[in-house]
């Protein structure tokens, strides 16, 4: 970031241009349902002018709606009526990106059809976010978050080994789809800079969820081994198949700690043992281990179990916040298992200005997650969602 000129007279065009929001001038029509709300929010946070189009009677009061549509303008349009569809086409004529969640085979698939919209505006990028993508044998399947998490493999990897597959209790697949949609939209924007033409971005929520499961599919592909859920344990780090405890009860909840190897694991394990010694905790087999030589890749289950027993006893005596502070001070790997209240009071987030207080319904202040990135030392500010049905939209980017 260039140094700010000392005087007003010294303000330069270059300085102002550098301070421009990254997506300034980018006009986005967000016609999405819940599946893709995050996409428009991410673009809005980076400076795009995002207009959220909602049906006249659509509920916009839920916390989910407000959290993911903040920073957008709200405009009511009824796509079921010819006038609403005409208004959409008029808006699309001067937009850069249109985000939709069409239902293959249904009426809205035609409204948001890329070929149709391209005739109106050849530069328009149409981002279609659907559970399975616009093509393929399951393109018309009826699913919600739990089925998408199931289809993407994530549920098979979460839960107790002998219990049912689990989803995260807060909806995740829609966020995965929305995030990938934002990447796709901007990839197409980069292409347009060279070709001058928009195109279709076809996003599959199922495929987006596969992103979440790391390299688990590679075990099937390379070794024919099917990873499965391991409950509060981690597998896949030892060639013997040993499992490593991940979640340990502590005084007021749980902490996450794993016996890692490598340089980072060495420091963590040495510091943990030092901490336990300071508290006069019985170290058991930990006392004799040379952490510089410890390699979990070849550890057996019996070895791991014997090492973990004294650690479990020690962790049961400390609090989540104490673990967080000591782990940081000692440069140990590991974190407490936080809930939303813990997160809301985390000094790290406060120090970085992550939370943004803006006016919500009725003018009441609401605390939102801020933009996800700090740009040239500044976190882009949020603005309240404005219901401005008659406001003319900004002109298309030049």
């Amino acid at each position, binding site marked *: 970031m260039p140094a700010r000129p000392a005087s007003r007279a010294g303000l330069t065009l270059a300085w102002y241009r550098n301070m421009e929001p*990254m997506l300034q001038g980018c006009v986005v029509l967000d016609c999405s349902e819940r599946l893709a709300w995050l996409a428009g929010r991410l673009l809005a946070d980076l400076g795009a002018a995002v207009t959220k189009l909602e049906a006249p009677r659509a509920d916009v009061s839920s916390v989910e709606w407000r959290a993911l549509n903040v920073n957008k303008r709200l405009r009511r349009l009824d796509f079921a009526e010819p006038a609403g569809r005409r208004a959409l086409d008029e808006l699309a004529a001067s937009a850069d990106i249109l985000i939709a969640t069409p239902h293959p085979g249904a009426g809205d698939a035609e409204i948001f059809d890329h070929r149709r919209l391209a005739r109106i505006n050849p530069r328009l990028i149409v981002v279609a976010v659907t559970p399975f993508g616009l093509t393929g044998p399951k393109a018309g399947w*009826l699913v919600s978050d739990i089925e998408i998490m199931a*289809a993407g493999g994530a549920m098979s990897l979460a839960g107790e080994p002998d219990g049912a597959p689990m989803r995260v209790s807060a909806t995740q697949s829609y966020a995965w789809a929305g*995030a990938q949609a934002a990447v796709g939209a901007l990839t197409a924007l980069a292409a347009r800079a060279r070709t001058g033409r928009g195109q279709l971005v076809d996003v599959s929520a199922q*495929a987006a969820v596969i992103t979440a499961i790391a390299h688990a599919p590679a075990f099937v592909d390379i070794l024919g081994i099917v990873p499965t859920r391991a409950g509060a344990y981690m597998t896949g780090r030892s060639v013997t198949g040993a499992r490593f405890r991940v979640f340990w009860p502590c005084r007021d909840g749980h902490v996450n700690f794993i016996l890692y190897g490598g340089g980072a694991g060495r420091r963590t394990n040495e510091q943990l043992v030092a901490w336990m010694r300071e508290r006069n905790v019985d170290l058991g087999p930990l006392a004799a281990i040379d952490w510089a030589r410890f390699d979990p890749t070849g550890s057996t289950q019996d070895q791991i179990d014997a090492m973990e027993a004294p650690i479990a006893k020690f962790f049961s005596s400390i609090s989540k916040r104490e673990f967080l502070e000591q782990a940081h001070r000692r440069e140990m790997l590991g974190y407490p298992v936080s*809930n*939303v209240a813990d997160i809301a009071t985390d000094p790290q987030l406060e120090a*970085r200005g992550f939370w943004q207080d803006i006016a919500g319904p009725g003018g009441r202040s609401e605390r939102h997650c801020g933009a996800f990135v*700090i740009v040239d030392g500044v976190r882009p500010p949020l603005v309240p969602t404005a219901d401005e049905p008659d406001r003319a939209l900004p002109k298309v*980017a030049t």
Partner: protein
Amino acid sequence: MSAGVQALAGINVVEFGGYAAGPHIGKMLANFGAMVVHVESMGRPDGFRLQYPPYKDNKPGINAGGCFAFFNDSKFGVTLDLKKPEGIVLARRLTDWCDIVIENMRPGVMERLGLGYESLRTTNPDLIMLSTCNMGQTGPRADTPGFGSQLSALAGMCGLTGERDGPPMLLYGPYIDFIASTLGAVAVLAALEKRRRTGAGTLLDISQYECGLLFLAGPLLDYHVNGKIAERCGNDDPVAAPHGVWSCRDGGWLALSCWTDAEFARLCAVLGKPELSADPRVATAAGRKSHRALLDAAITDWSRPRDAEKAAEILQGAGVHAHVVETMADLFADPQLEARRQWRRRPHPVIGNQAYLMPAFDLSETPGEITCAAPTLGGDNEKVFRELLGLTEREYADYRAQKVFD
């Protein structure tokens, strides 16, 4: 390595770091045409190469790691000893050549190496640089080291997974890393757009923790506004009922959900119990939540004698939300993923014909591609330093003699 017609053709990227959070950004960019160089050293290779299975034939080896390969396809791989001044000289040649630097070292490491943003932009003024780490570059815990599997616990995801009265659950791997890498790609691409418009470079500070919180933006706002603390609740949903998974004959699991009374009536018809939808105890969602055992028994009676995939197809035919819980093996047999060419096999010199995952989107006019398998350690040194950076044969030999590529 990048096709001329791809969206990001002509964009050069250099990565410093390893594991998932940085390299996965580069992979997505590479899949759409960017030329990406992954920098390691012989002494400190990417941690994914040797610390994480699977390995070819289950034998750890520096170039046998499927985990490393999974996130580094379509890239060039080089090695540089950054402890040597000459290594830094060549690193600077790379950063002068590229449009984007991605790094996921601990905060301050790049500066100590002489590779901080302010230094790099003196010779590459419109450089875009993204730094990603657990906590971000500032704040009281900025220097906290960490892996994504554990950060997912701090960010609330693990605490929100599992039964109400049970322990938190792991989300398999470094779940939050992939949130941050996906959002990191959004940030980098936005910075490219700004550079196109203004000519200015950008420094991007990504906190993986903060990125993860965007995936819980609703529950966090609910706490801030209403004081409500979201808790794990198994597979329950506040609206839909039934909503969960049921076991099937083939050992698989069936996920299904009903969002309206009408959909519940369709489910009952499939179950062969049309009268159940008229039962006043379960006629409403609230009633269905109160009489869970009754519904569980009815669904289990129907699902147990059936294979999961077939059961899902029957329910879909009747207009009921349903899908099999796919295992990792199922992902390679799913006709939907096959139709969309989600997996693409490319030959690797050690691992063999490995399946690589395409991003979750594709572009109609400038489609993505897995251009090649992941690089071996330092496998592209000559290509990158000779052909891309223009070192003479003599210069290259001199650097090699000085063990700069170690």
